[in-house]
């Protein structure tokens, strides 16, 4: 039994204010039917997440790690007959979780802050040379002065301001 007396009835506004109107969801599960991550042992069931948001179940939603299993294929976004934008909801839930609990913040954001990339683009010199390419590609790894500007820009975002200890140059 879920006790609904003390739930946050405005949670849906807080989380999905800017995606589709999730109140249109009638639980048809089309989003689940086409979802690769719904085949996981602990499956991603977007319709359940939408229900949790609508019912205002903050504590349960904060514990829910399934949004992070999403493969981002966006098939749900295409198939949803009610314009709920399930993929956008999934990303919005992740962001809400990050603001409530910083351990949700994906470590890759600190890599992008430090290097501009999620992979060692500036360190693949030998591999790139082996296929006759410029050893350092013309991305930000080639322009340290631009990386500095990029980091300055990100320092003004809420995420970096609120969690500045995570971000190192």
């Amino acid at each position: 039994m879920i006790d609904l007396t003390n739930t946050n009835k405005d949670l849906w506004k807080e989380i999905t204010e800017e995606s589709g109107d999730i109140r249109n969801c009638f639980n048809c599960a089309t989003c689940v039917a086409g979802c690769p991550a719904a085949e996981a042992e602990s499956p991603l069931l977007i319709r359940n997440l939408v229900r949790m948001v609508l019912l205002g179940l903050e504590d349960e939603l904060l514990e829910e790690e399934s949004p992070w299993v999403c493969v981002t294929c966006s098939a749900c976004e295409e198939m949803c007959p009610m314009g709920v934008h399930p993929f956008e909801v999934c990303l919005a839930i992740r962001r809400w979780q990050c603001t409530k609990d910083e351990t949700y913040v994906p470590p890759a954001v600190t890599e992008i802050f430090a290097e501009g990339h999620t992979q060692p683009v500036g360190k693949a010199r030998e591999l790139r040379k082996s296929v006759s390419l410029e050893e350092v590609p013309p991305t930000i790894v080639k322009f340290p002065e631009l990386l500095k500007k990029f980091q300055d820009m990100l320092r003004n975002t809420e995420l970096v301001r609120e969690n500045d200890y995570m971000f190192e140059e």
Partner: protein
Amino acid sequence: MKKYGLFLGCNMPAIRPDVERAIRLTMPKLGVELVDLPGSVCCPAFGTFPSADEIAGLSINAWNLAIAEELEVDLISECGSCYSSLRLGRDRLLRDEKKMEQVNELLMAAGKSFKGTAAVRHMIDVLYNEVGPDKINDSITKGLNGIRAVVQYPCHTLFPSETVGFDAPSGRPHMLRELVEALGAEVEGYSRELQCCGGAGGFTRRALSDATKFTKKKFDAIKKETSANLIIVSCITCLMHLDEMQKELNRESEDNNYSIPVFDYNQVLALCMGFEPKEVASISFIPRNTITEMF
């Protein structure tokens, strides 16, 4: 000559530069000039900033788009995720004045601004709609005659079709198949052709054995329903994942059941144009020599 800013992303320049080499060699031969986007960064991938802070994610999209705007070119991406992140981000900014203002405020400090003048195109879109299968067929010196292929459409170029789509209808894409046929190969359809490779996002990182089982279904369908000699993709994630998952599956038994070579389209195109396999198709787990030795 049509000109595009080549968006490299992260995986291609760092892990699969042979694909970058293939793209840089083949496109000019088709009358497509590629220019670099100096200072470009991660798109950003959906699992990074867009999952933590929307405005930060959009500002990084805008950082990349602004570089193309300054050069007055559209962007071209081979990676499906980069394509989708940039295209969805651009769309969001153009629809939402307030966010556009916030993002431009952030960019201003770096001496940049986002206007929305550069479009975002995927490799398949440009190859099919700007170049065309006929011109591609004319450009090759040796075809894939007698070879059977299956294709993997990148999900991020299909859904949501109203924003990212160019292949119509989104549920029955045909462009990659026709591009492969233009190289002389026969493309076989199969029941799981439209199943996502499973490689993007958090599925493999957080539930590896489930993700492996998911992709195994695709390989099993290919093996059972087709006699494909190779898999052709046009997305760096599909390429790396379909290659690496076969290696994972082969670990479970000794008879190397899964050994279908995987190529990016531009790699096969480069081979057909006569470029050296060691430059354009040298990096993979599953050996590719059954195909590369034809050239």
